[in-house]
Structures are given as structure tokens and as C-alpha cells.
């Protein structure tokens, strides 16, 4: 294995070149969006492949930032992400812990959970249920119907099961009840795992587009993904972001606005990504083995 032959080196060379091309395909869009969004429109028009801004401008970002619609959607999305993730963690952790203990009826309850992974009532009955519980057109419609992801619940449960039983017994002898054991022993021990799940849940709230278009009617409740679609895919950048915008007489070109908007909406993901990365491989593997 140590001695590398000519054929070996050729193989490695081709392989690594291909992998670098693939990696480039994954990050190139962001480099391009970055440089165009910070470039003057003249630079963008005069060069067909702009990879670094020569005349820097932050007009597009200022225009977006001054738009009430954008800031409002950002605020709503941050709120939904924070509150939603807290709800997710509370519901998932409590139930996962309960199911990790040998309580009466555990098998039936586990089957109940797994069955929902196989069969979903469907979009319309779920919509009618959200309507019946009075959540339509409210932030809670994005949070409560998604309070538990069954897959995460099962992975978290296997994590709790891997905590040695002796800890429970010792605490019981010391006179603690199950609530105290959960709050004072299990949760502090599970911090890294809980952090990983909160990042996963947070990303899914941030990226959600389906629930907002399904459950929210009022434009003033739109989340960042809905606004982003309006700006980039529908192509109504200026119309969506104008309103009381002070830029309104002389807005930057829609192209640069679109690219800046994508980067702004992706920024939180890019910021949490390094933290996510530490944890996800483990989580996925655990799920693959147990699920």
C-alpha cells in the first residue's frame, strides 16, 4: 500500500481533480452571488463572469435592509425559529425520555410513533385540524403541528437509553423523583445531543416554506422564505421590497437585489453550519442503525 505506482498516482490525480470540480460546483454559486451583490451594476453588465467586485457597493443590501417587508419577515422567522425550536426540544425530549424508561404501555406508544412515520393523514385533513384548533394565519401554525419529528424522537430516545441505568438507581436511592432525575441528571448530561437536535430543528424552521404558504394568508405574516421566493423566483424584487423604502426613487437593479437577498437569507445557515457539522454524522448514523 505504501509504495505508489505510476497508475496509482494517475488514479489519485484524476480522482482528486474530479472531487475538486464537484466541490467547486457546490460553492461557486455563492462566490458569484457574493461578488455580484457587492458590485456596481456597470461592473455586472460589462463582465460576463464576475468573480470579485472591483467597485464595491452595498446598495443592494441597504435597499433590502430598509424594506419593512423584509425586516418584518426576518423578525417573524427569527421568532418562529426560536420559539419553535424551544417547543420542539421540550416536546421531543420529554417524550423521548419517557419512552426510554420501561413504563407500562411503552411498546404500544412506540408503535404509535413509528406508525406516523409510515402513514400521514394527508395535507387536507391536517389543514382542517390546524383550522379547527384555531391556528390558521398564526405563527403557532408553523410551530405546534411540527412539534415533534418522529425520527428525531426515536434517535433521542436511543440516546437516552444509552445512559447507564445505574445513574437512575443511585438517584432514586438518594430520594429523587423522576422529574428531578430528568431535570438535574439526564438533561445536563445530554447537552451536546440536545444542542445538535436544536440546530437541526432550527434549520428546518428557518428553511420552511410549505407550512407558511399552507397556513398563513396575510402578507404581513410572511416568513423569510416566502419573501425570498417573491423576490427571486417570481421576480418581483423591487415591488416586494419597496413600500416605505427611502430608496424608492432610484432602487438598485433587481439582479443584485435578488443575489443579496439569497445571501442574507442563507447567512444564518452558513453561520451555524460549522456547529452543526460536528454533530450531524453521529446523529444520522445513530438514526440509520436504530430507525
Amino acid at each position, binding site marked *: *500500500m505504501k509504495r505508489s505506482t505510476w497508475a*496509482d498516482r494517475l*488514479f*489519485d490525480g484524476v*480522482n*482528486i481533480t474530479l*472531487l475538486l470540480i*464537484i*466541490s467547486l*460546483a*457546490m*460553492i461557486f454559486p455563492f462566490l*458569484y*452571488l457574493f461578488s455580484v451583490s457587492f458590485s456596481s451594476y456597470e461592473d455586472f453588465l460589462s463582465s*460576463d*463572469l464576475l468573480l470579485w467586485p472591483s467597485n464595491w457597493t452595498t446598495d443592494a443590501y441597504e435597499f433590502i435592509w430598509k424594506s419593512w417587508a423584509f425586516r418584518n419577515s426576518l423578525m417573524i422567522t427569527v421568532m418562529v425559529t426560536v420559539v419553535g425550536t424551544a417547543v420542539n426540544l*421540550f*416536546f421531543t425530549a*420529554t*417524550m*423521548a*425520555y*419517557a419512552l426510554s*424508561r420501561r*413504563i407500562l404501555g411503552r411498546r404500544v*406508544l412506540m408503535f404509535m*410513533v413509528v406508525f*406516523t412515520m*409510515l402513514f400521514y*393523514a*394527508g*395535507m*387536507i*385533513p391536517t*389543514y*382542517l*385540524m*390546524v383550522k379547527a384548533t384555531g391556528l390558521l394565519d398564526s405563527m403557532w401554525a408553523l410551530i*405546534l*403541528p411540527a*412539534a*415533534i419529528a418522529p425520527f428525531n424522537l426515536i434517535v433521542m430516545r436511543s440516546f437516552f437509553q444509552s445512559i447507564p441505568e445505574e445513574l437512575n438507581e443511585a438517584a432514586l436511592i438518594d430520594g429523587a423523583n*423522576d422529574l428531578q432525575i*430528568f431535570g438535574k441528571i439526564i438533561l445536563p448530561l445530554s447537552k451536546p445531543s440536545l444542542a445538535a437536535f436544536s440546530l437541526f430543528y432550527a434549520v428546518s424552521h428557518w*428553511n*420552511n*416554506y*410549505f407550512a407558511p404558504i*399552507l397556513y398563513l394568508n396575510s402578507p404581513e405574516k410572511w416568513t423569510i422564505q416566502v419573501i*425570498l421566493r417573491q423576490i*427571486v*423566483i417570481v421576480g418581483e424584487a423591487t415591488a416586494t421590497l419597496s413600500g416605505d423604502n427611502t430608496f424608492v426613487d432610484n432602487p438598485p437593479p433587481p439582479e443584485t437585489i435578488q*443575489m443579496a437577498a*439569497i445571501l442574507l*437569507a442563507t447567512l444564518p445557515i452558513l453561520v451555524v*453550519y460549522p456547529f*452543526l457539522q460536528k454533530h*450531524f454524522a453521529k446523529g444520522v*448514523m445513530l438514526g*440509520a442503525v436504530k430507525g
Partner: protein
Amino acid sequence: MKTETVQAGALPASHTGKLRRIARRMHKERYIYLLLLPGLLYFIVYRYLPMFGIVIAFKDYSPFLGFADSPWVGLANFARIFESPEVVQVMINTLVISFLQIVFAFPAPILLALMLNEVRRQSLKRVIQSIVYLPHFLSWVVVVGIVSIFFRNEGLVNDFLVYRMGFEQPIPFLTNPDFFRPMIVLEVIWKEVGWGTIIFLAAMAGVNPNLYEAAVMDGASRFRQIWHVTLPAIRSTIVVLLIIRLGDVLEVGFEQIFLQLNAFNLDIGNTLDTYVYYKGIQQSDYSFSTAVGVFKGLVGLVLVMTANWLAKRYGEEGVY
């Protein structure tokens, strides 16, 4: 306090010792049941009660009359599914997109994992991995947005084709329906290929290094090592994942498709989920769209359970 009432209610009835034992045990575990409560409520309200809502598929549901008073129509809504050429087309669209994904997007992570597995320098491997995992965490709006910026008529790809490659006019990637399916599949590959490698790389990590040494002794080239050592090692993983994927053949992803549907591609791009959305939410045809949803759900359930059973069977055989 809640558990006290449970116990008090259970005690008079417990003439047999068994009930008494159950009551005592539930009393002992009362705090755990308390922890169970929020999750249980969630599953009942948002996962199981909607399943009862399925009855409206057998009714002519009107929001004014409500669940109970809307008239029963038996299987009429289901009959409409098979009589409607529209639904048949939607069904075909769903299956075609799904099969294209299985043929092209399913093997992609396997290939990428094989390539990554051959990188000897661990630091380089980790850098490439971090980059290829990233798109998985982007929203579909961002991915479709990037695609529309790059592939529109004035976008970078068409600029390149026209000014550098001498094309006479831009290619209408976004409006010509012929491009719809290839674009959908390419987007899925771009977004998920890296993420999909995780499970295969883990399977490859379990290969005994002695096998490679033995192969080298026998004069195997790198390709032959991949063919005779690496691939057999991940074969059962591939088969199990493929079976599970086949069980999900009616799932093609709502957000991705919905974001790209337009007047040009609706005929070939409308899939079961988007159809249910248009019919049910936008046109308020609740009963019929619920019937379509139930039909999809039932077919999916049967397929998934069959796939699960097959995967387990195969998994067992793969161990020996």
C-alpha cells in the same frame, strides 16, 4: 395530584391483584407519564385526529355543514380519481419524476462516496466533505432561486453558451417543459449528493484493511480494489436503501416541485402533492383532494411496509 385520581379510580375496581399491580406501577411511574403527556397530546391532536378527518373523503364535505352533517357519498370521490384523466396524468408525472430520481439521483452518492473513500489525505477528505454536505442545509427556495438566477435567459449559463460557445440564442431552461424533469433531478443531486454519502462512507469505514493489502498482493489495480473489495462491502447497504427508496416512490418533494411549477410546465410537472394543494387549498375541493391524498397515503403505506419487510429480509441474509 392527577395520579391520585387514577389510583382512586382504579382501586375499587381492582378486585383482582393484577389491576392493583398495574395501578401501583402506574403510581410509581406517575412522573414519567407526566413527562409523556405533552408528546402524547401532540401525537393525538396533530397526527391521529387528522386521520379521522379522512372520513370527509367519503363525504361531500361542506365547511358549513361540518364533519358530521355533510352527506355521505360512499366511494364516489375515489371513483372520480380513476375517471379523471387529470389525476391519471398527475400520477404518471409523479412516477416518472420519482423513477428518474431513483435512476440518477440514487447512485450519485454511491459514486461520490467511492471517490471520497479513495482520498488518502484525511485533511483534504474532510474539507471536501464539509463542502459537499453544505447544500443539504439550504432551503429549497434558495436552491431554486440560485437555479433560476443561473439558468434564466440573461443568466450566467446562457451568457456563457451565447458569448463563449457561440450558441445562436439562449436556451429556455426554465420555460421549456422539456427541461423540467432534468432540472428537477439535477437539483436533487446537487443538494443531496454529499449528504447521501454519509451512510455509504460509514459502511466503507468498516472494511478490514487486510482485504485491500491482500488485493494489492494479488496485483489488483485501484479500480479492481473498488470492484472486488469496497463495493461488495457496501452491497447490502445499497440494496436496503434502494428497497426503502422504492417504497417512497410516490414522494417527490412538495416544495421543490411547487416552487418551479408555472404555466409552461404544469402539464408534466404537477405531482400528487401539488395537485392536492391546488385542488384542496386553492379551490376548496376538500373531499376530492382528501380522497387523492388518502389514495396516495394508502399506496405509500403498502409500498413502505413491503419495502421494510423486504429490507429486513435482505438485511438478515446480508449478514450471513
